């Protein structure tokens, strides 16, 4: 473009100043109208600032790796190695078991928590004196179909647990202090605040987006709303969830692992018999070991380091001196 011979320095400065003033005015209006806390829910309800802490400091950081193909044998064996279910569940406790019932798919595909584990864990909790056991998740697909077709609903009820199908009224906004993503976000709070103990019960799966779906990713099912927008930063949301949730115990089911085409799978060819059940009080450590069953290391899964950096646990599972048992 040819220079404008009529534009002198003074005029240039004047125009630039006017343009700057216009931008400043626009920026000022934006600044004054900016709502740093984000949109508020329709009700006047204030966002919760966190969840109850369900961890048991007196239980210590423990981990057990139980090997065997029969979940009904490996689960009690692993719990026994950690001091018994009574170490975690006391008389009168109201236990919430957070399962993965994300998809309306059959147990055969190992895309969801295996119903045998749900029933056995429920049975053990009730035997230890729990006053009530609730089983909950906010599935990706419609909840009633998910709990029915995965077999989780039937397994839970037959063992004496109550299934909590998510309803809009159970969700309340939650802001995790200093979080990047969990701000004023609807979380399945009602069943959590009614519980005194929380157990995460997750299948071990490949995940196309995050690399793996294990116990920390399982908390994703506590979120409501258009949570799939978090897929853009899935490593961070998993780490923030791990920081948000302080469980009593986590159980990672690697008896049959979905090693490819996760998280939905679809074919038995996507599965591998890895015959391992991992229990622990440190969810980061449990996931770090779980990665090895997928042929990966903790370093291959960025959410593990991120969760560790946020103080959710330790990726060095060996430091917990995991107890190894075989059924």
């Amino acid at each position, binding site marked *: 473009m040819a220079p404008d011979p009529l534009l002198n320095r003074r005029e240039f400065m004047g125009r630039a100043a006017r343009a*700057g003033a216009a931008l400043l005015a626009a920026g000022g209006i934006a600044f004054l109208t900016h709502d740093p806390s984000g949109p508020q829910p329709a009700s006047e309800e204030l966002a919760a600032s966190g969840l109850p802490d369900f961890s048991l400091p007196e239980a210590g950081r423990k981990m057990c790796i139980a090997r065997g193909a029969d979940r009904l044998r490996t689960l009690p064996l692993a719990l026994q190695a950690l001091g018994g279910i009574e170490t975690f569940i006391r008389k009168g406790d109201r236990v919430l078991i957070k399962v993965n019932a994300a998809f309306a798919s059959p147990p055969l595909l190992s895309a969801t928590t295996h119903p045998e584990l749900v029933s056995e864990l429920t049975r053990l909790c009730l035997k230890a004196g729990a006053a009530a056991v609730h089983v909950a998740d906010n599935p990706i*697909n419609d909840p009633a179909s998910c709990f029915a077709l995965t077999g989780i609903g039937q397994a839970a009820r037959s063992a004496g647990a109550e299934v909590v199908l998510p309803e809009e009224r159970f*969700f309340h906004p939650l802001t995790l202090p200093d979080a990047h993503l969990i701000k004023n976000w609807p979380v399945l709070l009602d069943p959590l605040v009614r519980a005194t103990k929380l157990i995460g019960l997750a299948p071990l799966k490949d995940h196309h987006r*995050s690399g793996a779906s294990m116990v920390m990713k399982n908390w994703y099912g506590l979120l409501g709303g258009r949570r799939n927008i978090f897929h853009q930063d899935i490593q961070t949301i998993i780490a923030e969830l791990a920081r948000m949730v302080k469980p009593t115990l986590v159980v990672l089911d690697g008896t049959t692992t979905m090693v490819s085409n996760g998280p939905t799978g679809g074919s038995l*060819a996507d599965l591998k018999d890895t015959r391992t059940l991992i229990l622990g009080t440190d969810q980061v450590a449990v996931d770090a070991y779980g990665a090895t069953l997928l042929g990966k290391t903790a370093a291959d899964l960025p959410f593990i380091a991120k969760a560790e950096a946020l103080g959710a646990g330790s990726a060095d599972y060996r430091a917990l001196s995991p107890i190894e048992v075989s059924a």
Partner: protein
Amino acid sequence: MSDLCSNNAHLSGRPRSRRQTLIGLFVFAVLAAAAFWICWAQSRFNPAVLNYLAGAVVATQPPASAEPFLELPEGLSPLSPPERFDRETLADKINGKAELYLSAGFVRLHCQRLALAGRPQDWLEAFVYDMGTAPNAYAVFSQQRRSDGTPLGFAEFAYRAENALFLAHGSFYLELIASSKDSRLLDAMEALARGFMAQRPAAGAAIAERDLFPREGLDEAGIRLIPADAFGLAGLDRVFTAAYAADGGEMTAFLSRRESPREAVDRARAYVDFLKAYGGEVSLADKPVGGTSVIAILDTYEVVFALGPFLAGVHEAPSREEALALAVRLAEKLKEAPHGP
């Protein structure tokens, strides 16, 4: 700009003023501060904004009508209403796997659970992905192909697993997934797939690039189409790969037809630069074409060349010699291919 201003100042005969300079610096400082603030605010964008704009907190029930969206073979009946998902909602059905389909050009998904008549415990779910084009459908089919699947004779791109059937037909990709390994379910799935094809006889389309790989040592079932970001390089799309046996394990031949020979050269250069950025050591070879790049990286070898409209090469070969030998064979096949648009 300073030259322009100086010239204008000189032309107008007005000396520079310190006041004008300060005003100019102030204006630029304000603009820089505004730009910084916008970037900072955007980096801390609150995703709750999108959530409250979107509405629903819990997954909704599908519509009540259980009319099948496919013509069903005898013995199958709907177990649930049909569902439909688009690019915005696909993740509501398949969660983290949505990106695989979206990156390959996904248009819409219809799905429905079906059961054997009178046996609701024996059910399957039919997923029909409309991928827009036949190559897109082949991309998702080939990327998820299970190694131990049994090919089905009635379609070129179809196989059966123990509990499932997978089919690419024209622009459609079908997944039929059963709740058990019951043979009656598997037979019903096959009848469903055959019926789907019969209703769309013109939909089948050949994937021409599959024929451009050297036949010797080729596992045809292992030919894949990577729709986007092949080998980790952003923007490297539509890359076909095929595995070949090598002395030290396995290596992969790849090819991608670009819009023009010039684009093929540019893509080849971009891929070589990408490998160099990750520590690759580049040498040149005069075969299969002059200016072929051979890159040693992480104890493996890559060969990259452009031939007409094709970007091609060999990926992760255990030795330089084997990589170049396969590249020469690949180039011979590419020379036989039509090079027009």
